[in-house]
């Protein structure tokens, strides 16, 4: 056992973990903002919505569906030219971000839309009957009333993003995926792969615990 453990370069593991955390947190933040925007637009432009607009709804829905359907590993490859222009390189954690965000935001947008649909229409109507404008309805009704679902959706998305970072790692983005694949699999040191896996699991559990805590705390139903 000691022999196996000795093989592990702990500094490298720490570095890889930090990279994964970096990629995950930046992409979760961007996914949240972009996904909220797209999800709100999907909800508001849908039939019977405040900004009912078939054309806009169709375009956003098409965009969301297409990017949600492309397998992530293919999406990264497809986005290589775009990433080059944006980041200037194909390697490193930053180079993974565009693909991570474009892959996860449409997924979260759908979850946001579903969460907003769950809101009782009567509550929106009540706000309208009090003379609320659209801005007030969005920030005082739609978001607070769907908050638990928005948070639990973000938790699921964040966990997907952790696994996306691992995939991105294999083709050069760094992080725990990269560490497990290059240092572990390719050099035939299965102990390293195992340790990297455990590190990812711990990360996922932490995200889940934090997500569950806030979902529960915001749910007053």
């Amino acid at each position, binding site marked *: 056992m000691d022999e196996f453990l000795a093989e592990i370069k702990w500094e490298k593991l720490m570095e890889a973990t930090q990279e994964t955390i970096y990629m995950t947190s930046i992409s979760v933040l961007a996914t949240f903002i972009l996904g909220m925007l797209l999800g709100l637009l999907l909800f508001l432009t849908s039939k019977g919505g405040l900004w009912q607009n078939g054309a806009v709804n169709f375009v956003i829905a098409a965009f969301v569906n297409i990017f949600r359907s492309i397998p992530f590993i293919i999406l990264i490859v497809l986005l290589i030219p775009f990433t080059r222009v944006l980041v200037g390189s194909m390697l490193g954690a930053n180079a993974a971000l565009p693909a991570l965000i474009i892959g996860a935001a449409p997924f979260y947008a759908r979850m946001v839309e579903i969460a907003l649909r769950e809101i*009782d229409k*009567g*509550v929106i*109507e*009540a*706000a*309208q*009957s*009090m*003379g*609320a*404008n659209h801005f*007030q309805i969005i920030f*005082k*009704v739609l978001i*607070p*009333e769907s*908050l638990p679902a928005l948070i639990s959706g973000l938790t699921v998305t964040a966990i997907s993003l952790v696994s996306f970072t691992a995939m991105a790692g294999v083709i050069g983005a760094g992080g725990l995926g990269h560490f497990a694949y290059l240092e572990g699999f390719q050099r035939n040191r299965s102990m390293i792969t195992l340790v990297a896996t455990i590190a990812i699991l711990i990360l996922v559990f932490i995200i889940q615990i934090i997500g569950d805590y806030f979902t529960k705390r*915001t749910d*007053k*139903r």
Partner: protein
Amino acid sequence: MITIKNVTKTYGSKRGSVKAVDDVNVDINEGEIFGVIGYSGAGKSTLIRMLNGLEIPTAGSINVAGREISHIKGAKLRKARQEISMIFQHFNLLWSRTVADNIAFPLEIAGVPKKKRQQRVKELISLVGLDGRENAYPSQLSGGQKQRVGIARALANNPKVLLCDEATSALDPQTTDAILELLVDINKRLGLTIVLITHEMHVIRKICHRVAVMEGGRIVEAGPVLQVFKNPKQQITKRFVQQVTEPEETRDTIDHLLTRYPHGQVIQLTFVGDGAEQPLMSNLIRQFPITVNILQGKISQTQNGSYGTLFIHLDGEEKDLKEAIAFISSHEVGVEVISNG
């Protein structure tokens, strides 16, 4: 306060259009409690929703508190809505906010500064009798308490008109009465004009000054509540009036009695206003050599006086019976012979 003029609302569907509201004309006075009664699908819900612009009439005009609700839009409509509050069958509270924050919500919308908001919320909480519950969430309240929050919320911006959309239909009878009493109290104290829609005649009887009966999108009958009770013209109105005056089992009882008393006559008397308080029965027995048997009776209070029905059985000589009935008729009491024995 409210003028509804030739209002029609048509919904288009694939199989043609449906007239939800059909050429309705109503004038509602300031400080009045006006009820609209009808079965579901009669168009009453569409009608009340047009009063605050949640629905826009296809034709006609609606004027509420001096504003043409049917023709204004955007910021003007939102401003007008602050003076036309609404309460709902399912309360429509924000579950994410406490009682106090729910009541503060319309104040936030109106841009009232925080200090003033807190002050106003305090007043409203004690007005609707929710002291001590300000930090509870709606999920912790009973139906009646939730509607109290709804009412406090509706009153927050000192509206001129309160619209009640089946506000008591989801509540049990006792809670319904408590909420209705609160509405009457508010109407008297604040001089608020109240428009309510319902399918329960009990609600109309208890708090309304005037009532309109809706069927198939049209108002088929309207007038002061007592008058409609006394003299319902349409079949549908008679059925609604029966909800209150004639408990379900009355008909069965009458049928049973008719077989039990083969002689004499069963008569339904209708008392309205002062007539309900005269010693008619004593006089009847004293003046005519007949026997009087009281079968069933009920007196209901309305906002403009009391209203009663009494079923009696009369027996005696035919000539005396005729005279007795003529005597009752001369006392401003409605007489209807149910059946000859």
